[in-house]
C-alpha cells in the first residue's frame, strides 16, 4: 500500500453519470403520471407519491441525522480510557 497526495477532483465520468441518473428520474416520474398502477394504500392514490416519499424521506433522514449528531457525537478516543 502506498500513499499518494489526496485530491478531491471527481473523475471525468461522474458528471455524465449524474446527468443520466437525473434523466432516469425524469422518465420514471413521467411514467407515473401517464400510466395507471395498482393501489393498495390510501397514500398510493396520490400521483407521484413514491418519488415524493423517496425524496422527502431521505431529506428528512439526512437533516434529522445532522441534528442527532450534535447530541451524540464525541471525540474518537471517548471510550479509550475504559
Amino acid at each position: 500500500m502506498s500513499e499518494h497526495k489526496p485530491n478531491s477532483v471527481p473523475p471525468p465520468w461522474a458528471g455524465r453519470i449524474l446527468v443520466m441518473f437525473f434523466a432516469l428520474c425524469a422518465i420514471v416520474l413521467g411514467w407515473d403520471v401517464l400510466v395507471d398502477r395498482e393501489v393498495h394504500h390510501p397514500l398510493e392514490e396520490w400521483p407521484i407519491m413514491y418519488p415524493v416519499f423517496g425524496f422527502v424521506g431521505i431529506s428528512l433522514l439526512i437533516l434529522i441525522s445532522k441534528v442527532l449528531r450534535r447530541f451524540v457525537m464525541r471525540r474518537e478516543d471517548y471510550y479509550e480510557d475504559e
Partner: protein
Amino acid sequence: MSSVPPFLIFLAGALVVPFLRGMPVVRAAWLLLIPIVGALNVMGIQEGYQLQFEFLGYTLTPVRADRLSLLFGYLFHLGAFISIVYSLHLRDGDRPTLQHTSAVVYAGSALGAVFAGDFITLFVFWELLAVSSVFLIWARRSPRAVRSGLRYLLVHVVSGVTLLAGAMVHAHQTGSLEFGLMELEGLAAWLIFLAFGVKAAFPLLHSWLIDAYPEATPTGTVFLCAFTTKVAVYALARGFAGTDILIYVGAVMACFPIFYAVIENDLRRALGYSMINQIGFMVCGIGVGTHLAINGAVSHAFNDVLFKGLLFMAMGAVMHMTGKTKASDLGGLYKTMPRTAILCIIGALSISAVPLFNAFVSKSMIMSALLYEHHYWIWPVMLFASAGVVEHAGIKIPYFAFFAHDSGIRTREPPGNMLVAMGIAAAACLAIGIWPDLLYGILPYGGEAAEYEPYTYTHILTQIQLLCFAIGAVAAFHLWKIYPAEIPSVNLDVDWVYRRAAVKVTRWTGSVVAGVDRAFRGSVLKTVDRTLRGAFRAHGPKGILARTWPAGSMVLWVSILLAAFLFLQFF
C-alpha cells in the same frame, strides 16, 4: 434415514482443525470439506424427521427437521462455505487455528440451534454460539477488541441464562420442554422472548452488535454477520410468529439505526446499524405472522446473509489491504481495487432492493403482507426505512470507500480467495433476484404464499421511483454541500449507559458509601477514643482510682459502709 445431526459434522470437523497447524493446503481442503459434506448430509434429511430421547423424565429433541429449520440449515451451510472461502488466506500472524476452529464450532452451534426441538438443546447451542464466536473478536488482539469481546460475551451469556430461566418456568408450568409456537403471556414466555430479543438486537438491547462486530477480525465479522442474529430470527419465527408487538419492535428496529448509520464514520459499524435495520424488516414480518409474511421474513434472512455478507466482505477486503475502515480515511480505492468495488456495488444494489437483485424479491413479500393485513400506519414507516437503506448501505458504503475524494491510498486487489467468496455471494444475490423461485421453492409455507409474484409492473415502477428519488436526494445534498461530513468521531448509543453512565454511577455510589463508612468509622473511633481517655483519666497513673490511699481513709470508708448497713437494718 442415513443422515447425522447437522451440527455433529461441524463440531467433529472443528476437532481436527487444530491438528492441521502448519499445513495450510490440507487445512484449507479440510475446512472446505466440512460445509460441503454438511450440505450433502442436510439435503438427505427428510421433512418431519425427529431425533428424540428421554432425559430426566423430559423428552429432548436434538434434531427436528421441518421446512423452517431446513431453510436455515441450507442457509448456514451456504454462509459457512462462503465465509470459509473468504478466510482461507489466513496465515500464522492472523491466528488461523484459533479463528478457523472457533468459526467452525460457531457455524455448528448455529445449526444445532435451528434444528433444536427442545429448549435445553436450544440453550446449549445458544451459549455455545456466544462462547465460540467471541474468539473471532478477540483474535483481533487489540485492547479495544478484548474489551468489546468481554462485553459481547457478557450480554450473550445473560441472554442464555434468561432463556434457561424461561425454559425452566415453561417446563414447570407445562411439563414439556418442547420448543414451539407460544403466546406472549406469563413469565416463561416473556423471559424466552427477552432472550431472543437480545440476540436479535431489539431496540435498547442492540448495542452489543454495533460494539462488537466492527472490532472483530475482517474474516471474523463475515462469520458473525451470518449466524447469531439469524438464529434469533429463526427462534422468533418458530416461537412468536404472529405476535403483534413484533410488528412495532420491527418498525423501530428498521428506522432508528438508519439515522445513526448516516453519521457513522466507521463503515463496518455503519453496516452493523444496517444489519439491525434489515433484521427490523424480518421481525416485522414475523409479527404480521401470515404465511406470506413469514415467508418474506425468513427469505429476507436468507438474502441478508448474502448481501450483508458481501458488504462486510468488501469492507473486510478494504481493511485487509489498507488497515482502514473509516470513511474519513478512505476514498478513491476504485482505481486500485476495481473488482472489489464492483462486487461491493452489487451488494449495495442488492440490499437496496433494486429489481433483479435478491432483497427485491424478499422485502417486497413483507411490504405486501403489511398492506394485505391493513397495517396502514406501519407500511409508510417501513417504506421510509426501505428508502433509508439506499442512503446508508446503497450509497454511503461504496461511495466513501471506493469513490468520494481520493484519499491517496494506492493498494491492490485482496487475495484471490476473498474475491472468489465475494463473487459467490454476488452471483447468489443476482441469481435469486433474477430467478426468485430458487428461493421461493424452499420457503416454509407453500400454496398461495409461495406463489407470490414480485415482478409486477406496479411493484417494479414504484420501487424504481422510490430508489431513484432517494438517491436523488442524497445526490442533491452532496451537490448543495449540506450532506453530513465524515468526521473522525464516535457516536453515543445505548452502550454509553454501561460504558460510561453505569461506571459513573458506580463510582459515585462507591464514593457515597465510602463517605458514610468513613463518617461511621470516625464516630465509632471517637467514641472508643473518648472512652479510653475517660478510663485513662480514672485508671491512669494520675487517675483518681489509681491513687494510693492512706490506711486511715480505708478505715473511714469501712466505717461509713458499716453505718450504712446498720441504718438499712432499721427499715
